[in-house]
């Protein structure tokens, strides 16, 4: 008899459930660890971490030096630790160079400082076009760069993740770290956009 039983999940959901129960049964993962991971990514880890590092770099030359020297260390200093032992490298935009981050293989992403990747970052068109025609990709995000600015594309790997340090927008002299942080979007730290201009800051 059907009709009275629980709603049958899709085949995909059943496969995910089976994977989890097998891994738990074999002692390869702990259920508490899974809950903790989801909670962390929901509440604690997100682009606000990266934005904090960028805003600090904008206001503190020493910190900027440390961030560009060894971003894993500088992030750890602020309490943002890599969970999988991967290295983080900060790449700074200048008037001559604009940096763009991609993972052509499988969507590696700097989780620690940016949280979970957006859908488009994981898409085939982004993964291939960021390399083959980065300027066109930037244009689709509404980002126009002067013709003399060189675009440097960084292909992430399981060992190396990248954080773009966008240029500090004009008209933000004297701003606090907290206020500056609001200008640093996730997309700016992937490199598909610039940091927000002060007038674009939501009131």
């Amino acid at each position: 008899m059907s009709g009275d039983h629980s709603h049958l999940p899709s085949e995909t959901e059943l496969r995910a459930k089976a994977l989890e129960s097998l891994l738990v049964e074999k002692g390869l993962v702990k259920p508490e660890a899974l809950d903790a991971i989801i909670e962390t990514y929901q509440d604690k880890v997100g682009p606000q971490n990266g934005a904090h590092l960028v805003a600090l770099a904008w206001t503190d030359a020493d910190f900027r030096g440390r961030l560009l020297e060894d971003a894993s260390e500088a992030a750890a200093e602020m309490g943002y630790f890599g969970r999988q032992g991967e290295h983080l490298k900060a790449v700074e935009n200048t008037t001559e160079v604009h940096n763009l981050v991609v993972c052509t293989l499988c969507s590696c992403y700097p989780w620690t400082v940016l949280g979970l990747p957006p859908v488009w970052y994981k898409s085939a068109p982004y993964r291939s076009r960021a390399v083959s025609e980065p300027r066109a990709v930037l244009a689709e995000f509404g980002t126009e760069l002067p013709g003399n600015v060189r675009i440097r594309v960084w292909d992430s790997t399981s060992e190396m993740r990248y954080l773009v340090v966008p240029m500090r927008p004009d008209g933000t002299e004297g701003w606090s770290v907290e206020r500056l942080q609001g200008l640093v979007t996730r997309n700016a730290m992937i490199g598909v956009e610039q940091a927000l201009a002060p007038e674009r800051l939501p009131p």
Partner: protein
Amino acid sequence: MVNSSVSGSGFRELEGPVFRAPWEAQVFALVCALQETGKLPPAEWSATLGEEIRLAKERGDPDLGDTYYFHCLVALEKWLLKANLAGRDEISACIADWREAYLRTPHGQPVELRQPAKSQGNSG
């Protein structure tokens, strides 16, 4: 190689929630947990996942990012098999058990797998 034919859908239209269903978060958490405990070395994972994404595209998946966690799910199954941590039959049986558990559980009650006969669990 160059894949600009799919550009009809702009990247910004591909925005959306990071997880579209609970199972996606579940798969993500499994991968994370296995990496954190060192059981799944990151390089091994990115190779396995990269290969699965390549195969999915060969099968005609436009791969617009919305199937990413499905690729992770399949890659994780394949890794289990390759690492000899589970057998194909074992995985299939577990999926069947879950289906059966849903069909057997009256609506509104928590769905649980039938507990295997191991009453003295010594966890920790």
